[in-house]
């Protein structure tokens, strides 16, 4: 084919003048504008465009001419109907169980209207532990069990009622209270010195405030009545306490008084007033709670005391004893005969008995609660003189003071000392009858700790007193350690006390010293009479307590109320407090604190005469 010739040149288009835009060789752009004239008409060359075509066989024509064959195929587009699986979403059926509790705030209301004025309130204790109440095993009903499980901790319960304590109880004591509180029947059998009294008072305090008990009877040995009164004043000052005492008419009236929260009686009165207790129809002798202290007193179920105790109408019963089994398992049977008659049988095997009583008895020993206890625990045993002692004491004091008064200015400190010492000796023993309230208490305590396998030291400032104690405490195998024991014998005494299990008591004078004693074998110390100077007492105890020895020491200080002992103790206490207040931040041991001459004269409300001859350094006059 020829190429068409109609291609016009740039010159034909009259664009020849546009050029030189780029001079290829010069590399520089320049624009030259020349004159423009319309282009010449192009030459037209006519050509015949009829193209000859020749047909040659390709087979396409037949194919093009052929009629298309159209097939129709039916194709189902629906497909199978899918199976449907329906998943029901059922809402679960939930059933709920409901338990309602009476509104405790409305139930408790204000504290008892007849509560005696409480001492100055102290800040509620914020304890570190939280002791939860657990339902006893004999509480079967779920609602009753939940009532205990859903209570706040014991500490919260007490805080919420603003029940204060003079000092925070130990953790094991909280557990003891939690053990007693929910129980209808319980035996608190902690070792002596662990605070059974405090635990019982706190638990009954909770019951009274919760309205779960309205009338409580406390029964204890006669020498411990004063002690219980004192403990109540310390641990539950807002709760009125009525001591059953006096002649029969008065006691009958006291027994039948209906609205007294707590009555306190001794075992002897139980026996004597059994007829009143059994015959009274009033609510005054129906008790929501009866607590027996030193409950081994009723271990003999045939004794009159035991029978009298069983005659008391009661709902709950708690027994306290440091020696639930003094001699044989039958002792426990006797106690349970009061708590749950028929529950234990005398012939029961000890193991079976242990399983049966497991949930009702709580016993902790000092070793078990070691971590909670300080190295030394002091407790004051406040006692009253026996009737014969009181009579002798009163007479001696009156005559003595009369004689001192008659001496006038010629009275010396020595005269006063003599009277003080005489009266202190009467506080130990009645010279005529030998009666001693201190000895009664000491015997009771020694029985308890001996049954626990413990040993004790007993201090006195008089050798004669120690020897009288030796004669009266023979069953405890007493040994003596004082000035009349030769130095050669002393080592043997100490060895015997250490090694012989039957030697339960070591009788020591304050003056004996210079030899260290191993207190691992004596975890109880009794101060039968007090020294003038507490530092001497501390020295005596510390000499016996070696640093690093295991086991806390319980120190019991005997003090007879309404006597010279109490007056001396009060003055010394004031001096100690004054020293501690003034020198609270001072390091070092406290110096000796004794009585001045004026203070000694003041014991009998006498003026110290100007001519009184000092027998020694006034500060150490009674050291």
């Amino acid at each position, binding site marked *: 084919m020829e190429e068409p010739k109609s291609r016009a040149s740039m010159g034909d288009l009259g664009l020849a003048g546009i050029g030189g835009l780029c001079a290829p060789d010069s590399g520089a752009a320049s624009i030259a504008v020349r004159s423009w004239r319309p282009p010449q008409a192009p030459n037209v060359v006519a050509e015949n465009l009829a193209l000859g075509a020749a047909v040659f066989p390709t087979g396409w024509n037949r194919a093009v001419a052929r009629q298309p064959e159209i097939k129709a195929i039916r194709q189902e587009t629906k497909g199978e109907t899918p199976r449907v699986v329906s998943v029901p979403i059922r809402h679960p059926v939930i059933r709920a169980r409901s338990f309602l509790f009476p509104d405790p705030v409305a139930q408790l209301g204000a504290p008892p209207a007849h509560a005696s004025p409480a001492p100055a309130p102290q800040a509620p204790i914020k304890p570190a532990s939280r002791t939860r109440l657990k*339902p006893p095993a004999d509480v079967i009903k779920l609602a009753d069990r939940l009532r205990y499980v859903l209570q706040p901790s014991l500490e919260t319960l007490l805080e919420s009622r603003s029940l204060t304590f003079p000092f925070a109880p130990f953790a094991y004591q909280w557990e003891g209270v939690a053990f007693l509180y929910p129980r209808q029947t319980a035996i608190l059998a902690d070792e002596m010195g662990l605070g059974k009294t405090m635990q019982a008072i706190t638990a009954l305090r909770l019951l009274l405030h919760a309205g779960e008990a309205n009338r409580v009877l406390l029964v204890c040995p006669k020498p411990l009545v004063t002690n219980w009164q004192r403990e109540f004043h310390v641990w539950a000052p807002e709760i009125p306490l009525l001591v059953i005492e006096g002649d029969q008419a008065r006691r009958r009236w006291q027994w039948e008084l209906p609205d007294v929260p707590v009555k306190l009686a001794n075992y002897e009165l139980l026996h004597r007033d059994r007829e009143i207790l059994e015959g009274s129809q009033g609510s005054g002798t129906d008790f929501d709670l009866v607590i027996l202290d030193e409950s081994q007193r009723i271990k003999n179920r045939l004794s009159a005391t035991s029978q009298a105790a069983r005659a008391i109408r009661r709902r709950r019963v708690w027994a306290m004893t440091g020696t639930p089994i003094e001699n044989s398992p039958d002792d426990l049977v006797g106690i349970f005969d009061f708590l749950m008659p028929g529950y234990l049988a005398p012939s029961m095997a000890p193991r079976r008995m242990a399983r049966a009583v497991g949930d009702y008895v709580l016993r902790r020993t000092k070793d078990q609660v070691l971590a909670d206890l300080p190295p030394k625990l002091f407790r004051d045993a406040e006692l009253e003189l026996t009737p014969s002692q009181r009579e002798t004491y009163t007479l001696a004091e009156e005559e003595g003071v009369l004689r001192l008064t008659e001496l006038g200015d010629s009275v010396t400190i020595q005269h006063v000392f003599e009277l003080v010492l005489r009266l202190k000796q009467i506080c130990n023993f009645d010279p005529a009858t030998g009666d001693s309230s201190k000895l009664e208490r000491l015997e009771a305590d020694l029985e308890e700790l001996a049954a626990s396998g413990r040993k004790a030291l007993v201090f006195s400032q008089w050798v004669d007193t120690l020897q009288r104690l030796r004669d009266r405490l023979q069953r405890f195998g007493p040994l003596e350690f004082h000035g009349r024991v030769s130095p050669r014998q002393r080592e043997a005494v100490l060895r015997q006390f250490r090694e012989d299990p039957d030697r339960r008591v070591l009788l020591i004078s304050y003056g004996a010293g210079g030899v260290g004693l191993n207190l691992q074998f004596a975890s109880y110390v009794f101060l039968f009479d007090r020294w003038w100077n507490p530092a001497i007492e501390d020295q005596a105890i510390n000499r016996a307590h070696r640093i690093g020895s295991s086991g806390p020491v319980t120190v019991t200080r005997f003090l007879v109320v309404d006597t010279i002992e109490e007056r001396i103790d009060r003055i010394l206490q004031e001096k100690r407090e004054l020293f501690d207040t003034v020198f609270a931040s001072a390091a070092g041991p406290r110096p000796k604190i004794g009585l001045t001459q004026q203070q000694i004269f003041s014991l009998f409300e006498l003026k110290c005469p100007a001519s009184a001859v000092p027998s020694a350094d006034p500060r150490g006059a009674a050291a």
Partner: protein
Amino acid sequence: MHVSDAKSNLAIGFLTVIDYPEHGLFGGYLILNQLSRPLEFHCTTPIKPTRAQQILYGPTLQPYLYGEQIGRTLAASAKTRPVAVLTDREPALALREFVDVPVVLVPEQGGSSADANDAVYRIDAAHPTPARLTAFSLGPHRLIVPSSSAADREAVAAALGGIADSFDFREPFERIREAIEEARRGG
């Protein structure tokens, strides 16, 4: 939900759910007064989700069971109206949709709900999903409410602010757990 007020005393509800693998979910609801003493206790029989429910509900299963089923049933059983319902189970916050009192999460000490409003936002990436929980402090306590009910913070502070310092908000859950165990053992 609640029939009557508990006189003029403060009432606080505590709700928890315990999962016993062999039995299922137990719900417990304890109502205390301001002295921490119990007023009411309700507990559920155990429920176990079916396999279908586990699959179909997916991540919504726990809120459904804890909040809607268990929580709502327990709340309806109560006679006392609490000022707030505290729970130690985050899924139980779903109860808030069905009750007219604040529902508050008491988180475990030291732990935190991953979705609380202290999430970290990046400047170089898309923001995470806005937190669905809102944390706030009440006395010594750190509490959490659903963000959709963030206004409950004020109501909770007004109702519980007075006792926040002295009341242990975690302790009642221990009691509920023990109570459920007692109920479970007792049959």
